């Protein structure tokens, strides 16, 4: 690895004038980041201390920490965080469960394995907006094919976009959002786990088969060590991205009915661009940002340990 030894061009080999200062090469990218990422983030901290009026041209009023006090004391915010928590837990469990099943089925090397995994990636790569829209058709309560099939099989039509309780203990609308999100993201996890599994040496697989290893031992001692780093990576990405979920929810339910599916991103969107309370919205975003930064740090430390151990 290049990074291990400071082997870059040093002063003795540097040929004057022909070589560009590395900082000039980084500068354009840095400026773009400064303009559209670093500055907006710092500026939005300022925004969060102001109260905006509905008319965007009007000068905002400085209110100090009032926005933060309002958020932290309002049950509405905590309710949205709670919903997001439920959503994250349910979707991660579902996604990992389903991916593990698929990956274990793909464990034996057979021809066409790659094609299957590639086809499996389609739902993940296409736009969430398109996926969510097609699910609105599929899950349409009266005319959609899913309810048509369910009705002829078990004679019951669940109201997929309602506040009715589903058998999983959450309202149907929330379940629908979770299911669609699971449909979109399971391939991502499956792919990572599959990549980890492909790294298992073939003779180890053969050996375990010749020895007639029981499945649980095979899983514990042959498969798990190889997919562990991938599970860590997938977990980080999924956790972060679950907090960001917006597209599919906005298309499926737009946060409704009521606030049943108002996950934190949708909530911020509504506060900002429907109530035009930009100050409070940025304040909530900052809260989310702090959580994300904290979690990233925790996870990153873990992943460096896990993947570092794997390489050496």
């Amino acid at each position, binding site marked *: 690895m290049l990074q291990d030894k400071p*082997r870059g061009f040093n002063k003795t*080999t540097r040929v004057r004038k022909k070589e560009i200062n590395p900082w000039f090469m*980084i500068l354009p*990218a840095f400026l773009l980041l400064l*303009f559209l990422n670093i500055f907006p983030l710092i500026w939005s901290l300022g925004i969060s201390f102001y109260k905006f009026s509905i008319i965007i041209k009007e000068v905002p009023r400085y209110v100090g920490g009032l926005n933060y006090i309002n958020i932290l004391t309002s049950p509405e915010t905590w309710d949205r965080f709670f919903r997001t928590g439920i959503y994250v837990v349910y979707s991660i469990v579902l996604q990992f469960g389903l991916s593990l099943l698929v990956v274990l089925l793909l464990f034996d090397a057979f021809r066409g394995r790659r094609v299957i995994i590639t086809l499996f990636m389609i739902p993940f790569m296409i736009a969430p907006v398109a996926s969510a829209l*097609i699910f609105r058709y599929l899950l349409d309560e009266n005319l959609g094919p899913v309810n048509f099939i369910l009705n002829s099989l078990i004679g019951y039509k669940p109201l997929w976009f309602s506040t009715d309780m589903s058998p999983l203990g959450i309202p149907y609308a929330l379940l629908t959002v979770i299911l669609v999100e699971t449909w979109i993201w399971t391939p991502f996890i499956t792919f990572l786990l599959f990549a980890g599994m492909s790294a298992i040496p073939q003779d180890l697989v053969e050996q375990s088969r010749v020895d007639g290893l029981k499945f649980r031992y095979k899983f514990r001692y042959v498969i798990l060590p190889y997919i562990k780093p991938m599970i860590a990576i997938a977990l980080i990405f999924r956790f972060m991205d679950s907090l*960001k979920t*917006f597209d599919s929810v906005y298309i499926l339910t737009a946060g409704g009915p009521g606030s049943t599916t108002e996950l934190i991103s949708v909530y911020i969107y509504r506060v900002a661009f429907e109530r035009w309370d930009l100050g409070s919205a940025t304040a909530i975003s900052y809260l989310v*940002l702090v959580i994300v930064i904290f979690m990233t740090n925790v996870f990153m430390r873990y992943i460096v340990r896990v993947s570092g151990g794997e390489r050496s």
Partner: protein
Amino acid sequence: MKGVNIYRKTLLKYRVKKYLKFTLITLILVVYLIPVYEMFVLAFKSRTEMYSNYFIITQPTLDNFKEAYEHGAYGAIINSIIITAGGVSISLILALLASYAFSRYPVKGKNLLMFYILSTRMMPPIALIIPIYIMFFNLGLKGTYGGLILAYAMMTLPLSVWMIKSFIDDIPIDIDQAALLDGHSTTYILFKIIFPMIAPGIAASAAFAAITVWNEFLFALLLSSIETKPTSVLLSSIRGERGFNWGRVAAIEVIYILPIIVLIFWLQKYMLRGLTFGTVRK
């Protein structure tokens, strides 16, 4: 003889198991892809058939594509192409320069900057869009192609930098040093020596960045105007119409997702790098 029998039996058992697994996985895959299949079916269905014969078409028609055309879907797709091409090219050029410097030079604060770039990927876009929205509103960039292109260049920069850097890292530094001693300039080395070597990698990075921009919704929703709205925003606006034709929606969706489905097969080789930002290589 007995040993051979046992051997045959286990082999048979193993084969049966294998085929069972294969059947099961194929079945899961087929069920899993029904929604995508349904988009294609709906797109070619006539309006009268929309809520009957769910999964088959008896009389395929192109009416839906015609209707999509009449409703301005193709303008939205052209917008998508403009925005994607613009955003991806800017991000690639900036990323190529930056990642070369990151890969080859011990720049001060490199790790910090690289980590910051990666962490922008983790930030919820909703936290970023509010200040950018106000900023663009004040600068007159809201609703313009330029604003969207800049925003997307920023959005795809982390992926491009990390991925291209991973490709440059794979090339031994001795090549650069030799070229430098031969008296070539950095620009020559980067564009004439390194670039051709990592061209497939750059194409893959471009494809991943393009898919990100092509599919993006939140920024597009808030930063575009009626004239500059890309396909994702058009699709979401149909949702609000009363009694719209699902066939038209599906027709737009098919045009929207088809390029990506084609790309996936080409990207197979680079998928792992793309999904993990080049941090995991094969």
